């Protein structure tokens, strides 16, 4: 009797967790203070789920990982764009940002260049990932800087997701699989934090107005 490789198990667990979260958030959204933000976030998670689905099916059916730019990459990039859009919806001030807000995307750029130079010759795929994650990184930093105290934990969970993703690009084997489990844990925590932060932020605003 054989069992699936650990990487496939981690992908399937992530997929199931995302599916449960998508259903939960879709029905929970209407009870929150910002239902459209939560629904768009659910859409982002669903995109990520679709990427996992394609990746896991490809591995299970063809016994290899997709090579080059696949549907998974496209839909994962789409989900990161949606997460970026949600930060924009939550409100990023157009005021002049401090230097460290620009330092965060600079780290991502350095990381993306190192994938290309050290590990891979898939320049188009890595380039696209680099651009999307760099923009995401800037929005996380700018959002963290602009947000009130109540919203900050949500941005920290976004930063954790970005960090784990960057590590996954530079890792393979057991480290990659462990990071995939960490990513799953973060993806479970992130929407719950979003729900809590939205409620607290709305309460803070109401309190300030009174």
């Amino acid at each position, binding site marked *: 009797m054989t069992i699936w490789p650990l990487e496939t198990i981690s992908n399937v667990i992530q997929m199931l967790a995302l599916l449960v979260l998508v259903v939960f958030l879709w029905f929970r959204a209407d009870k929150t203070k910002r239902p459209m933000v939560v629904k768009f976030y659910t859409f982002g998670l669903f995109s990520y789920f679709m990427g996992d*689905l*394609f990746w896991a099916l490809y591995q299970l059916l063809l016994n290899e990982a997709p090579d080059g730019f696949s549907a998974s990459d*496209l839909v994962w990039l789409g989900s990161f*764009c*949606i997460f970026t859009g949600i930060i*924009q919806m939550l409100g990023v001030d157009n005021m002049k940002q401090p230097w460290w807000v620009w330092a965060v995307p600079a780290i991502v750029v350095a990381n993306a260049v190192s994938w290309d130079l050290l590990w891979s010759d898939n320049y188009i795929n890595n380039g696209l990932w680099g651009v999307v994650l760099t923009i995401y990184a800037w929005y996380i930093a700018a959002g963290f800087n602009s947000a009130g105290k109540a919203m900050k934990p949500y941005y920290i969970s976004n930063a954790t997701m970005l960090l784990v993703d960057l590590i996954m690009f530079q890792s393979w084997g057991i480290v990659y699989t462990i990071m995939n489990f960490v990513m799953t844990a973060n993806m479970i925590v992130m929407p719950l934090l979003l729900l809590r932060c939205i409620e607290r932020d709305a309460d803070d605003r109401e309190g300030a107005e009174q």
Partner: protein
Amino acid sequence: MTYVENIFVCIAVPLAVAIAFTKGGSRRFCVFLLTGLVACLLSAYINSFLVSVTHYSTSRAAVYFTPITEELMKLCPVLFYFLIMEPDSDRIISAAVAVGVGFATFENCCYLITNEAVTFSEVLIRGLAVGVMHTICTIITGLMLVWFAKYRRMTPVFMLGVFAIAVTIHAVYNLLVYVPGLSREIGFAMPILILAAVLIIEKSGVGILNDRDKY
């Protein structure tokens, strides 16, 4: 040998005549049906070009880039209509349906003419699988456009997400059908199951159409 352009002319000319003699919603539907045919023809050209450039096999191309080109070609007319004409939600959905039906019709006609020995059961599976899959992908795109209509500033970001989801549904279908056995049977059933799920969600009042006037 029958050229795809010949099949295109045979289907497109009656539709073009219909456009001249109809009005309102019927004319719009015919226009988008014809647009679906054109989208299918153009994506056939692009796919052939990409296969010759990348030297991918047809099955590998079907998993990697065919879904991207086909969904992009179907999305473009619907997106153009949404952004330029600013139609109401019912019109967006009927435009998306017509583009998907036109695309699927042309692809199925080409399949039938190039594979003369297909049995009725194969034709039925083809119609219910690929035919429904193309239509459901564009319906999902249309539903998402209705959903995002109030957030126009975010359209570029969310459109990428919508496009990516349509591509992935298409790619998952192609991947499942590529491997013989149970996987292929699940693949053939997948479009009908997704269609049933979308219908149940929308009719039960928890879907996207329910949200359009809510917020």
